[in-house]
């Protein structure tokens, strides 16, 4: 069965600093990969997705993610974090071949002024 891990439960960065959130997946074939953001009291909003092609994908709000098949990773990056980026971030996989859509446990991002 496919699975998603996000090793960092909570990350704190200063405003203006760069950010990288880690995501690792387990899946037999090339997965469909997504990053979502959840602000407090809100639903999840899609930041970006990877289906195929260029392994570096651009998303909204200045985020990008890179698919690395050799490392089974899909890390999310942003060169300069803004205070409004403080939220919960979820990596997700699938669905394909009868597998369900699976979300990682999430990483909470705090931003220091």
């Amino acid at each position, binding site marked *: 069965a496919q699975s998603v891990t996000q090793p960092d439960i909570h990350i704190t960065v200063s405003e203006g600093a760069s950010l990288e959130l880690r995501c690792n997946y387990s899946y037999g074939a090339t997965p469909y990969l997504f990053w979502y953001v959840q602000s407090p009291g809100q639903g*999840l909003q*899609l930041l970006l997705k990877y289906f195929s092609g260029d392994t570096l994908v651009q998303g909204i709000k200045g985020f990008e993610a890179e698919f690395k098949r050799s490392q089974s990773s899909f890390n999310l990056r942003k060169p300069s974090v803004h205070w409004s980026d403080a939220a*919960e971030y979820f990596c997700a996989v699938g669905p394909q071949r009868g597998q369900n*859509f699976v979300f990682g*446990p999430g990483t909470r991002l705090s931003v220091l002024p």
Partner: protein
Amino acid sequence: DTAVSQTPKYLVTQMGNDKSIKCEQNLGHDTMYWYKQDSKKFLKIMFSYNNKELIINETVPNRFSPKSPDKAHLNLHINSLELGDSAVYFCASSRQGDQPQHFGDGTRLSIL
């Protein structure tokens, strides 16, 4: 215009009661979902419907019954509510089952 809307936003009720959460999407999507998010923010799919037909039914107590009167609506009815049902329930929709999902703002269910 809200793409995926859920009502109510908050639901506080007592153990043993029956309650429903409604979900509507105006995106013209074929697939709709219900997710449960627990207190640790862990998000787990409960049900998936495609064109009013049940596609995914995860290990969920049969006290939970989804109903899809048409492609734009997927309601969740819960019987005999238990303390462990306290969570935030999210409705979502997508064009097809493998496409990105659009989420509602959630319904926070609290069982007293």
